[in-house]
């Protein structure tokens, strides 16, 4: 091994500076793209929120994928597999369904959105349910409950990355989290959807290649495909079977997560607005195909393998519910794997590849944070401020309100991240992947009304309001009694262990929606038929 010594020394030296230089260049590039987006934009609300409804294939598919794949994909899910074994790998099966939803749901949303000039999910849902203010408010609340935890997750990932990159630095977590928040906030503020989508193209490409490179590097470092799986097969049986060491991931729970998390994610405000901003339904059809194939491949043959390899090389201490001593938190396993193994494997080239992977993690976090900040701004401005606070406000005033919301939401999320760091036992902010599942559980509550509007058209205004309210309250109850209150209510704890919380909320939501719709006033037939024609019309 002495022949490798200079390369290892060079790699060690490079590990100090190259990641910092590459991360700085990356951040600078995002700000430049944000500025270019600003220069190309018009002053209208539609342009700021939907980039003029003209996004072509590459931008559409990469922005949809980048919005979907967040820090949860790069840190949270590998962290969960590292902690709980192979059980959570079944989560990959949600991706082809999410991909199919881009066309099956997205094309109908696109058609009606273009024809009727909608900008937010609340615009379409409230218009369909007879101009209902209640449906609009509930759509906005659902969006808010989804978006804030999702932004918190992304900021937290920036902190985790900084902790591993600058191990000796005091407050590395706070510095990383703050830097990610401020840069993201700035380019969303100045350029709107155009900047968000353009940066998503870069970020989407980085994160897809990063996921695959991470998998390939891990397999190579562990002796090639044969050697890798040989080592993985030596893991304790509980790590390679269901429901895993913590008894958390039964196939029933994974099935309900795959069915509802996928669809819930694809109708969250950020994705919904991406359907509106596509150039055509055909753009969404092609995006759907690419998404359904490319994302699961990057997941199954990329980061999933890193997590399994991490469990072999850095076995966690499950009795104490702690990761390996070299891994500060379960969510950091991918970063630690890359930092520990790639430099030795690739010598002088190692620091560049590791830096690229760090940038990819940052890209995954920022691409989701930017989309969510941007959509939250649209939802609160159009669905709340414009409708209920100052209905006669000018477009310019609304643009400034939207930008103020972005600033407030960024600092609110940053505050929650700092609170979580100071209170490490506060369950809801503990693990990235668990936060992701709760956020999606909220966005799932628009599924019954969305499916009714797009396909069945039997529901009523009162049914929609009652159903969404019941679903949101159910998810909140599960969250409060299983994660926040010290002594969990055993029935709810068992239920959340057996089934996905989003599914449970959705089931209550759908039952209430159908029951109330059966006894309340139907929507006018001609109104429903006009919508049906708009959803199904050819381009």
């Amino acid at each position, binding site marked *: 091994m002495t022949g490798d010594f200079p390369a290892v020394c060079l790699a060690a030296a490079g590990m100090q500076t190259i990641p910092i230089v590459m991360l700085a260049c990356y951040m600078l590039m995002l700000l430049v793209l944000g500025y270019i987006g600003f220069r190309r934009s018009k002053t209208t609300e539609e342009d700021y929120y939907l980039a003029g409804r003209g996004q072509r294939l590459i931008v559409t598919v990469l922005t949809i994928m980048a919005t979907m794949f967040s820090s949860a994909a790069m840190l949270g899910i590998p962290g969960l597999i590292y902690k709980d074994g*192979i*059980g959570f*790998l*079944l*989560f*990959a*099966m*949600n*991706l*082809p*369904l999410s*991909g*199919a939803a881009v*066309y099956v749901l997205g094309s109908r949303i696109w058609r009606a959105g273009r024809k009727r000039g909608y900008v937010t999910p609340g615009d379409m849902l409230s218009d369909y349910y007879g101009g209902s203010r209640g449906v609009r408010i509930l759509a906005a609340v659902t969006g808010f409950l989804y978006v804030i935890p999702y932004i918190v997750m992304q900021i937290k990932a920036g902190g985790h990355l900084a902790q591993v990159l600058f191990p000796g630095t005091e407050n590395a977590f706070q510095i990383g989290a703050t830097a990610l928040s401020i840069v993201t906030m700035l380019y969303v503020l100045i350029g709107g959807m155009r900047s968000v989508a353009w940066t998503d193209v870069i970020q989407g490409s980085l994160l897809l290649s990063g996921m695959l490179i991470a998998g390939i590097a891990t397999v190579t470092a562990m002796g090639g495909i*044969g050697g890798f*799986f*040989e080592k*993985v*097969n030596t893991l304790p*049986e509980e790590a*390679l*079977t*269901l429901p895993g060491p913590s008894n958390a991931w039964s*196939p*029933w729970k*994974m*099935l309900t997560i*795959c*069915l509802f998390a996928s669809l819930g994610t694809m109708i969250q405000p950020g994705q919904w607005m991406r359907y509106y901003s596509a150039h055509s339904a*055909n753009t969404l*059809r092609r995006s*759907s*195909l690419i998404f*359904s*194939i490319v994302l*699961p491949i990057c997941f*199954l043959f990329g980061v*999933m393998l890193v997590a*399994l390899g991490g469990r072999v090389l850095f076995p966690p201490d499950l009795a104490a519910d702690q990761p390996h001593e070299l891994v500060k938190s379960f969510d950091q396993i991918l970063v630690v794997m890359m930092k520990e193994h790639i430099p030795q494997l690739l010598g002088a080239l190692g620091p560049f590849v590791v830096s690229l992977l760090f940038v990819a993690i940052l890209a995954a976090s920022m691409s989701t944070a930017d989309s969510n900040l941007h959509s939250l701004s649209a939802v609160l401005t159009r669905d709340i401020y414009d409708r209920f606070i100052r209905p006669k406000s000018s477009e310019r005033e609304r643009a400034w309100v939207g930008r103020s919301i972005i600033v407030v939401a960024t600092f609110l999320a940053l505050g929650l991240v700092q609170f979580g760091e100071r209170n490490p036992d506060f369950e809801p902010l503990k693990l990235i992947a668990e936060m992701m599942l709760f956020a999606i559980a909220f966005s799932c509550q628009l599924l019954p009304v969305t499916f009714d509007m797009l396909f069945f058209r039997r529901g009523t205004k009162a049914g929609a309001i009652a159903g969404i309210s019941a679903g949101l309250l159910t998810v909140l109850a599960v969250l409060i009694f299983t994660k926040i209150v010290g002594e969990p209510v055993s029935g709810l704890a068992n239920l959340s262990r057996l089934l996905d919380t989003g599914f449970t909320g959705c089931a209550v939501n759908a039952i209430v929606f159908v029951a109330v719709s059966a006894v309340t006033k139907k929507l006018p037939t001609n109104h429903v038929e006009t919508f049906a024609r708009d959803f199904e019309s*050819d*381009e």
Partner: protein
Amino acid sequence: MEPARRKRLATILIIVFFAAMLMGAGPGAFLVNGKGPILGMPAIYAWVVSWFFVQASMVVIAYFTVWKKR
């Protein structure tokens, strides 16, 4: 493609797609849970990868048939 044929094909694709979901991510996984490696890979991993390919095939067929512009 005629509407009736398109509808029949769409129904078949949806059924196979969700059957793959049930097998790969749902109770179908019990069939290989605790079994030894398949082709050298952990059984659950090989199982999920196989059913993913079934789902992806359904999306590809839908793309070239039922999702085509009417």
